[in-house]
């Protein structure tokens, strides 16, 4: 009975749970509630993932209104994978939140924080599960609006301007998206993604559909921060409370990428225009430029949170590059990097959260000598950093391996060389931190009493680091899922 309704429960549980925080009011109760809800969501996602692996795509009609008229929730391998990523990251982040939020957010706003977190969480899950283009917009807005609030809760007053900037860019993106959806609706009369996939080819040659695709692309690329539409991201990540950065960096942009994959490989999966060289070339060029610009700017940052934010811009480039090959290996590399990057960036931002918790700063110069004072945090930072560089036995290596293999398969030697070159840039910006933390004596006058972050923050961080090693040593599970999902997408099935 319940098992049958899991797809809707996946979204509705956190969505309905959010307002409860208003009643609970007390910060610690809200935290416990949010954690519990997140963990329940993880259980649901895992069951759904196993179900999809076992029996194929799950379709759920809301209120028993048959699709294309009613809203359909559709869980295929890719959405189940993304659902699991989002809820797993949420579940690991939730215990981490308690101490970090207590330190960084004023106490009277704690319940608001958890309320917004749950809303954002529900929105992200909704995007990944829905099979309806308009419904996707609704969840996109839910997650975006709540994340604007979350970012503005940062202690630094610059968080407000960062949030405002994200609000403007994000709203632009969402508006573009809905314009695109409207145009498609105009031409086909349907909002169901699977239905669109069938109807679009007939009208694909019209200028309206072309314009729709352009609007959808730009709108989603704003949300996923593809260079050069990334401008909202660095400040938002830098000034948001640490846990918000952890959560958004590992999930929000990833879900937007998921939406882009849906548009390109499901809705427009049967259409020639996507395969024409011009669009692929635009993707490839933007992705590669993003990889380099992001990494190079990262090298020059003195604020390490901002450095990691720019590195995220570069990493989005890797994912898009993988997709732009439109081959099984390439798309699989992109999909698996969604997961892999969530793991390593989550770990790295958690490490920064721990550092901020202990020394109250995320400036590089204040990190001198931290290797001795916060050995576990810095070790985790190195673990995440090595993964970012793509050292073997970490998840970063797996992504890079498949990305380069995809480039070589297509005969694009030049791109393969560029991927390797850009990963060397990661060596530079990670090692700057390592040098300062381990081989610089701590500046005189700094607080000698700096000690390790609390266990409730260390454990989640190390879970992510351990995950990024585990899935780097044995990548067969994740790669099999990613390869199957890529095959499924490229098979053109809706």
């Amino acid at each position, binding site marked *: 009975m319940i098992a049958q309704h899991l797809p809707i429960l996946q979204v509705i549980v956190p969505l309905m749970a959010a307002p409860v925080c208003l009643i609970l009011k007390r910060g610690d109760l809200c935290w416990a509630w949010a954690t519990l809800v997140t963990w329940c969501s993880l259980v649901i996602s895992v069951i759904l993932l196993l179900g999809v692996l076992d029996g194929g795509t799950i379709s759920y009609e809301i209120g028993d209104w048959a699709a294309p008229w009613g809203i359909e929730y559709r869980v295929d391998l890719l959405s189940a994978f993304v659902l699991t990523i989002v809820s797993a990251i949420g579940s690991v982040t939730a215990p981490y939140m308690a101490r970090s939020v207590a330190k960084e957010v004023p106490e009277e706003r704690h319940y608001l924080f958890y309320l917004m977190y749950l809303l954002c969480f529900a929105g992200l899950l909704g995007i990944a599960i829905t099979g309806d283009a308009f419904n996707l917009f609704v969840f996109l807005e839910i997650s975006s609006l709540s994340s604007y609030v979350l970012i503005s809760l940062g202690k630094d007053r610059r968080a407000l301007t960062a949030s405002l900037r994200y609000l403007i860019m994000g709203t632009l993106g969402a508006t573009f998206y809905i314009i695109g959806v409207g145009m498609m609706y105009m031409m086909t009369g349907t909002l169901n993604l699977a239905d669109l996939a069938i109807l679009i080819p007939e009208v694909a040659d019209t200028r309206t559909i072309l314009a729709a695709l352009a609007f959808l692309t730009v709108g989603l690329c704003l949300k996923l921060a593809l260079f050069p539409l990334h401008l909202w991201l660095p400040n938002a990540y830098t000034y948001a409370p640490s846990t918000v950065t952890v959560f958004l960096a590992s999930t929000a942009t990833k879900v937007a990428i998921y939406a882009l994959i849906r548009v390109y490989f499901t809705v427009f999966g049967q259409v020639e225009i996507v395969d024409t060289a011009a669009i692929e070339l635009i993707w490839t060029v933007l992705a590669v430029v993003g990889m380099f610009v992001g990494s190079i700017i990262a090298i020059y940052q003195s604020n390490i949170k901002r450095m990691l934010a720019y590195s995220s811009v570069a990493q989005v480039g890797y994912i898009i590059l993988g997709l732009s090959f439109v081959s099984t290996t390439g798309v699989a590399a992109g999909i698996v990097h969604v997961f892999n990057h969530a793991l390593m960036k989550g770990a790295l931002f958690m490490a920064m959260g721990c550092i901020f918790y202990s020394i109250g700063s995320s400036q590089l110069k204040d990190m001198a000598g931290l290797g001795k004072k916060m050995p576990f945090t810095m070790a985790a930072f190195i673990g995440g950093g*090595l993964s970012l*560089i*793509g*050292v*073997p*036995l970490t998840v970063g290596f*797996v992504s*890079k*391996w*498949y990305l*380069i*293999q995809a480039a*070589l*398969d297509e005969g694009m030697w030049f791109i*393969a*060389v560029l991927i*390797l*070159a850009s*990963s*060397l840039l990661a*060596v530079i910006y990670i*090692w700057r931190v390592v*040098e300062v933390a*381990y*081989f*610089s*004596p701590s500046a005189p006058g700094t607080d000698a009493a700096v000690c390790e972050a609390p266990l409730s923050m260390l454990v989640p961080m190390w879970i992510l680091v351990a995950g990024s090693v585990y899935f780097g*040593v*044995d*990548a*067969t599970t994740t*790669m*099999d899922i990613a*390869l199957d999902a890529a095959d499924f997408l490229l098979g053109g099935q809706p």
Partner: protein
Amino acid sequence: MMILVAIGLPLVAVIPILLADDFPNLREGISLATGLIVLTLIVQIYGAVSAGEMPTVDVIEMLPGLSITFAIDPLGMLFAGIASFLWIVTTIYAIGYMRGHHEENQTRFYACFAIAIGSAIGVAFAGNMLTLFVFYEILTISTFPLVTHHGTEKAKKAGRTYLGILLGTSIGLQLFAILWTWVATGTLDFREGGILEGNIQGPMVGILLALYVYGIGKAALMPFHRWLPAAMVAPTPVSALLHAVAVVKAGVFTVVKVVVYIFGVDFLADQSSSDWLLYMAGFTVVVASVIAMRQDNLKRRLAYSTISQLSYVIIAAAILSPISIVGAAMHIAAHAFGKITLFFAAGSILVASHKTNVSQLDGIGRRMPWTMVAFAIGALSMIGLPPTAGFISKWYILQGALDRDLMFAVAVIIGSTLLNAAYFLPIVYAAFFRAEASLSHSTHPATGSHDDAGHHHAVDHGEAPVAIVIALCITAGMTIALFFFPDVPLGLAQDLMGGWK
């Protein structure tokens, strides 16, 4: 099983080493005990290998279709044996050195050392190129803290060079070459006769070979050699074991592996596009020797000598005749024992007298007879004179060059022998036959390394601590013993050749 323990034990030993932070004796005891167990295991594995077996273990499937696999071939056996034996000797030496020289962060030192050895053995036993690459990278990263051990500005700068070149070449070139191989052939296994034949041809062979050889930055083929002199800021035991044996030998070992098992000797011999390797290696041998002559800092001179000696191995591999491959394997062994002796001696001089430069060594042979005799033996082996191990390997390499009528190789080997003599023999001569300068300050140049700083110059010094002397006598003894009893390494080297003959 034994293979996994041999690789895993040093890695696991890191934990008790870190826990024993406050108990130096226990910490070093653990290091020694681990070394002994690993050596015992490797001797047992040798028993199996010499009986003609090829033990293989699949550990885990890392990527679909690609596993972490260990397979022991004669060459890997030889390298692992050398590394594990010399680890024990170096630990004895390090106890004397690190205490005698009052180094800090000793726990980090021993921990990273253990990881480095574990990964060197991993490189030696790797059953495919992916496994080898994994351990190659661990080796790079675990040795970085050893290079920057002192934490000074100079050490950090050296660390940047070290990591930049080694990671840059391995990720930028080697990984590319590996992926190219994988895409072209669909396998990365080490197979007798190579895997590339029939899959790529023409100038592509030369390009791929270049990606591999330059990608293996640890082999220090010019122009990617600068990390090695930079790494000399590390404490001497690090320079001795890692930058004369484990790390650099992992480099040339990988080159030989790639030539023999990825390309295949016969395949490469047919490809004219791979000829450049011999000339580049020859160039490196000669140029590095010339640079070595001009170095006054003893450790830097040894470093450039290492660069030149590593390229001997590459020349031997590039000659592409079975007998020269035997020479390559032998030279890995011979140079290991000889060069570690020289580094031990350099460290011994530093601990006892705080001298770092060649020009300060007049008459030191009378104060430190053991050290300087060992140094002389090491130097003879570098030059390739009997009765030292260096003679045997050079003999085989020359024979291979003559077999294939490569007069360039012959000329390089003979010419560099003279150069080696020119930069080693004056040190030995000065140490034993020149009079000691009466006032140490008058001869002491202002450009002393950081090691001088803060130390009182011991004008009236004797021999170094006993642990150091024991260690360097063992390695010097081995250098001579290998000349008279070369059976074990030579047998392994010939098995390597016999495998694909």
